């Protein structure tokens, strides 16, 4: 049943910015490193679509001011130690990436005529600023660097499960997307950097991100955190689009059907440049109040900014062109775009070494709980976090691997798991993966589940999710390896869907992306806590709230409308 066994010191799952960084840094520490990706490294995951915004605190910036802004605007549920680490390590690592780019002939960071890094005030920024990054050249650089570093690559392979030996992670099982080959990947430590779960919903380029990393960590006993902050971006209603941080930085405006720039009512200090968490909830509330549809208006942006936008997010402008819309001449109907745990929205709980609670298991990038962000703080933090957490988790996993004994796990130990993963191929009749995916999407995308929530709407969603989990997912059939990947994606997706709904039910207040009509206030007295998720010994999903340290900025008290 197992076609191939590969041994490595460090296994990295997911080859976006975080995974490449982790693989390169683990390899620097004299380990054998295997990087596995469901697609082709440099054109897979969220990183090639990073849409231009990266938060880099330069040496001349006041780190205390930046830390305060990130934590205040993350509504205080950030891990402040990670915020500090990111502010210290982001600049040198960003400049290292820039240097690698130059060596391979790519321009990664945009600069002004004097050669200074181009910096803008984009979404959420008050005193902080955002650098502008070219995502595809950055990922071309990462691929070249991974190869130059002699990291082994295994592409078009979906990792489905972690392999444990006496409570320690000792490898993973992989499935060939195109050839159906099954791999046993034996490793001394594993870094999960396969992003979160976007449920194949909106957002450009995210539809192969279906939460395997987070789901397999959960199955292995890892704690996950802040899944109640499952996120949304926004998009054109007619087609997927992105680049909103740049658009907002350039003076893009959000209008309701009365022509009002409504965001000033929701985030008075910065209006149209509001944080994503505020913007998505606000659009949903405008619609609920009968002031829809809502539009994005770029008609007042400068020619220079228009040129920059076209350069940094070419995909977005191909979408506009295909719709025969010139966004610089007419306003475009816009809507919130639910993204689950992709790009933020919670994930694997990690400490400041990138380690999870399961020995041998590390996480980096959006697959982790993105601890720097809090609710959703300011734009561009995720990309910086990708390189900072990749660097840290890669080096931590390497140092763990140096001390760890080789596991004696054999093919026979995983055969049962493999058989159950291949089972959809044997089903004569069954549901198509697409049917199940659509049902799941319908539950999660509903306005009263994704945005304007209540106990009743979340309980209804939970019932529907449980029924899909129990009845539909086990009945999925697959005709070939391509469909088998999709069938297995439904397994991961339903797991993450349940985590989201249960976490949102648990948090009885409103904060960040989480807005509840039955608990409309932010409640620091009872809910300044992390919502945690873990599989209990009976296999049920356990959810609880956990206090956390606030070493640099004291936590606020009291209740108030979300801010």
């Amino acid at each position, binding site marked *: 049943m197992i076609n191939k066994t590969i041994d490595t010191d460090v296994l990295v799952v997911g080859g976006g910015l975080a995974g490449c960084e982790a693989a390169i840094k683990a390899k620097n520490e004299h380990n054998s490193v295997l990087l596995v990706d469901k*697609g082709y490294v440099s054109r897979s995951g969220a990183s090639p*679509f990073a849409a231009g915004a990266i938060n880099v605190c330069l040496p001349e910036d006041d780190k205390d001011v930046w830390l305060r802004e990130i934590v205040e605007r993350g509504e205080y549920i950030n891990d402040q130690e990670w915020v500090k680490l990111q502010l210290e390590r982001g600049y040198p690592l960003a400049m290292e990436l820039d240097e690698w780019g130059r060596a391979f002939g790519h321009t990664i960071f945009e600069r002004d005529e004097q050669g200074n890094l181009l910096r803008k005030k984009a979404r959420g920024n008050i005193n902080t600023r955002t650098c502008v990054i070219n995502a595809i050249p950055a990922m071309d650089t990462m691929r070249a660097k991974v190869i130059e570093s002699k990291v082994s690559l295994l592409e078009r392979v979906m990792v489905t499960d972690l392999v444990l030996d006496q409570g320690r992670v000792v490898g993973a099982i992989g499935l060939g997307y195109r050839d159906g080959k099954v791999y046993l990947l034996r490793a001394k430590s594993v870094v999960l950097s396969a992003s979160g779960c976007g449920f194949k919903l909106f957002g*450009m*380029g995210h539809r192969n991100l279906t939460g395997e990393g987070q789901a397999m960590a959960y199955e292995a006993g890892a704690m996950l955190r802040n899944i109640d902050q499952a996120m949304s971006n926004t998009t054109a209603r007619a087609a997927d689009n992105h680049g909103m941080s740049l658009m907002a930085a350039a003076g893009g405006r959000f209008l309701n059907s009365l022509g009002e720039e409504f965001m000033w009512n929701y985030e008075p200090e910065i209006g149209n440049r509001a944080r994503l968490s505020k913007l998505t909830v606000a659009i949903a509330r405008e619609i609920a109040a009968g002031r829809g549809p809502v539009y994005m208006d770029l008609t007042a942006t400068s020619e220079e900014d228009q040129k920059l936008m076209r350069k940094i997010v070419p995909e977005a402008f191909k979408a506009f062109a295909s*719709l025969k819309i010139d966004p610089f001449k007419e306003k475009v109907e816009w*809507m919130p775009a639910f993204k689950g745990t992709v790009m933020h929205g919670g994930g694997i709980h990690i400490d400041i070494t990138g380690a999870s609670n399961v020995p041998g298991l590390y996480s980096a990038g959006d697959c982790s709980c993105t601890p720097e962000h809090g609710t959703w703080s300011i734009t561009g933090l995720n990309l910086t976090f990708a390189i900072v957490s990749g660097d840290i988790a890669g080096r931590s996993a390497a140092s763990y691997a140096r001390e760890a004994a080789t596991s004696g796990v054999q093919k026979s130990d995983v055969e049962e798991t493999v058989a159950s993963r291949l089972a959809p191929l044997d089903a004569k009749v069954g549901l198509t993966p697409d049917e199940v995916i659509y049902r799941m999407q319908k539950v999660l995308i509903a306005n009263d589940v994704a945005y304007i929530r209540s106990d009743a709407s979340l309980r209804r969603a939970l019932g529907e999710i449980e029924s899909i989990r129990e009845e539909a997912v086990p009945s999925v059939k697959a005709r070939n390896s391509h469909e088998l990947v999709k069938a297995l994606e439904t397994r991961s997706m339903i797991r993450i869907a349940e985590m989201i709904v249960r976490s949102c039910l648990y948090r009885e207040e409103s904060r960040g992306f989480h807005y509840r009509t039955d608990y409309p206030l932010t409640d620091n007295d009872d809910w300044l806590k992390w919502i945690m998720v873990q599989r209990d010994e009976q296999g049920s999903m356990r959810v609880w709230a956990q206090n956390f340290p606030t070493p640099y900025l004291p936590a606020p008290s009291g209740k108030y409308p979300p801010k």
Partner: protein
Amino acid sequence: MAIRDIDRVKCNDCGRCYLICPMDVFGKVGRRVYLSNPEDCMPCYLCEIDCPVDAITIDAERGRPIPLPY
């Protein structure tokens, strides 16, 4: 449908689209690329951007219907 066809006159069989597509939309027989799972096209435009001979034009229409929030 987001991807409808490949311009056979322009296509030089370089295989770049097959190599990079995140959704495994393309198949290959010998050197010839074909659309094996076009309904899975997101679309993300990476094949159109990377195609050296402009043989692919992507339509912004979503490959599969997705429920809308409202």
